[in-house]
């Protein structure tokens, strides 16, 4: 049976595990119909031209985790940002691990989607926000249909989340091949601030496919900083659908560090609904082998005096392939918009590929929009210059690549995270050198 049929027919079984009378279940039921109609995207669709899911959809995934798997903290410590005090929402094979987590209900809610969807206390927030910004494409609808577990973060008005929040999804592969569908909801009310770090980590060589949906709502003057660490092993694929709705004068930033995985697709969508909004999309991609990363971004400017800044840097070695497709829409009403987009790439091998495509749809006449894309090699003159000063070839290459990615790293606001990313990059580049750029 094909995966699509299997998923559609599993929906009945899924219904036995949830409260079908809850209003949210109407949303699920509608979503499975949409998925049944639209199915998985194919390369015939413009937005999926360079990314084929065929190879990863042919596996016979298990859709529901059958048993609880436990992990010892010491075995997975390295995947945590452990030198920093944080809240943690941790899942193992799609199931919540209370053992590894640290949640809170003290002034703010950092807890589970499964509670939020079933307890009356959360009903107003769920009614107002759940599935309100997520789009109705096939993959998102599939996630919506099976939405049950994930992270739920609610920061009420005038609150500062007192420490960053880590959301980590582990897959152990103890029970064959897994399809995981986490569903996250993050609501940050007026004048509030939160920092979130998200990571998906496979601990198995069995194929894992994650189809994740995250909805983020940044109310007036809210500040949301979201960091995605994508450094998974070569049998894990990720489709990350993130939808952010921003109100007046809010600032939302998403950093995506794509350092590994089989196929990674980031659908990152910003919808602005007010004036004086700033949306920031930064990315560093470093890939080798046959890894593939596709960054598909959308920023929709609907009102005057807003900004968006996109800066994606990519380094591709061996047969790695990358895609950057950045769409900016500026509505007729959105005068005085400043929208910037840049995508710079270095190809280290003849067989590495990057497809970079800006898509600007501008209907206002008084705007500043710019986009730029470069594809090049490491500068040989610069390498010789550095080597003539005693810096070894490998280190010189690494230093040049660090420098290339530097401005994106500089914008990471959590020092421990910045340090960790630096270390991940050093490991990736195979150097042991303490650059503090």
């Amino acid at each position: 049976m094909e995966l699509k049929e299997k998923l559609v027919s599993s929906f009945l079984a899924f219904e036995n595990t949830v409260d079908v009378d809850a209003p949210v279940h109407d949303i699920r039921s509608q979503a499975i119909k949409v998925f049944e109609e639209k199915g998985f995207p194919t390369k015939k669709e413009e937005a999926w031209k360079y990314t084929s899911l065929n190879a990863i959809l042919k596996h016979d995934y298990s859709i529901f985790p059958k048993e609880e798997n436990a992990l010892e903290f010491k075995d997975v410590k390295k995947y945590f940002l452990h030198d920093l005090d944080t809240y943690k929402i941790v899942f193992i094979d799609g199931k919540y691990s209370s053992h590894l987590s640290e949640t809170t209900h003290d002034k703010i809610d950092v807890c589970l989607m499964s509670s939020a969807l079933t307890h009356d206390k959360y009903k107003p927030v769920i009614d107002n926000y759940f599935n309100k910004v997520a789009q109705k494409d096939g993959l998102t609808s599939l996630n919506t249909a099976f939405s049950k577990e994930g992270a739920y973060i609610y920061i009420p008005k005038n609150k500062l989340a007192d420490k960053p929040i880590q959301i980590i999804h582990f897959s152990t592969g103890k029970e064959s091949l897994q399809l995981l569908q986490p569903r996250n909801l993050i609501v940050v009310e007026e004048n509030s601030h939160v920092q979130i770090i998200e990571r998906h980590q496979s601990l198995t060589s069995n194929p894992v496919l994650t189809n994740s949906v995250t909805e983020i709502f940044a109310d007036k003057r809210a500040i949301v900083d979201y960091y995605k660490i994508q450094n998974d092993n070569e049998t894990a694929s990720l489709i990350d659908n993130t939808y952010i709705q921003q109100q007046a004068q809010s600032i939302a930033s998403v950093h995506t560090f794509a350092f590994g995985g089989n196929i990674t697709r980031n659908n990152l969508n910003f919808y602005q609904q007010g004036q004086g909004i700033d949306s920031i999309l930064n990315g560093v991609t470093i890939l080798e082998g046959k890894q593939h990363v596709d960054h598909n971004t959308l920023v929709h400017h609907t009102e005057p005096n807003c900004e968006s800044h996109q800066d994606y840097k990519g380094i591709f070695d061996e047969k790695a392939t990358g895609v950057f497709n950045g769409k900016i829409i500026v509505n007729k009403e959105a005068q005085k918009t400043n929208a910037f987009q840049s995508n710079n790439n270095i190809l280290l091998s003849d067989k590495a590929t990057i497809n970079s495509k800006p898509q600007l749809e501008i209907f206002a006449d008084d705007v500043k929009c710019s986009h730029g894309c470069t594809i090049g090699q490491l500068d040989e003159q610069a390498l010789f210059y550095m080597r003539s000063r005693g810096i070894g070839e490998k280190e010189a290459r690494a230093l040049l690549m660090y420098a290339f990615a530097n401005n994106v790293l500089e914008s990471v606001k959590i020092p421990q995270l910045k340090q960790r990313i630096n270390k991940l990059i050093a490991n990736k580049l195979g150097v042991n050198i303490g650059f503090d750029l």
Partner: protein
Amino acid sequence: MLEIKDLHASVEDKEILKGLNLEVKAGEVHAIMGPNGAGKSTLASIVAGKEEYEVTEGSILLDGEDIEDLAAEERAHKGVFLSFQYPVEIPGVTVTNFMKTAINETRKAQGLEEMPAKDMLKKIREKSELLDIDRKFLSRSLNQGFSGGEKKRNEIFQMAMMEPKLAILDETDSGLDIDALRIVANGVNKLKSKDNAVIVITHYQRLLDYIVPDYVHVLYDGKIVKSGTKELALQLEEKGYDWIKEEINA
């Protein structure tokens, strides 16, 4: 210290050096002059270890050791320094961090511990004062947006930091006004000792008023065709290179 014997070198099958001989001893300053296209910068790049050039004949010995098979960084570890005619801009790497990395990588290769941060800062302060370099300048990206003169001064600052055994200054005077030239020359002179040597490559006699050479060589068509003392530089300044070409062709 440096002994170049019958050096032939080409790039993309074009022969540029055609049997060059040069011997530089510790404590000496040599000037190499010559018309454009004679091979001066090629010589500098080959000694520093640039890989595009192929040495087809002859040898380069540093303290008696053939360095032909050594990579650029290994030559740097042995004390070779090239002040670039066109220093490369490296956005994202500050002057200070570049120097820290260069010095510590060199020390690592020499089997030494990394230089303690305190000592490093002290050294940076001393050497930047020597070259009249503003502290703010050190936290800028390497060579990015520097004026021609700033780039050259920064090269000599790097030389001062690296304390090389053999320094090759490739047209360090070009792009410098007279004040900057004095500062740079003064920096080079302060670094001179009986244990190191300097090769100054230049078009003009001007720099040699400040960095006084023990020997002056004329490089023409891939060979050193004439050698002399500092008076030769004055003669070249006055008469140009045509009389040398005539002398050779005669």
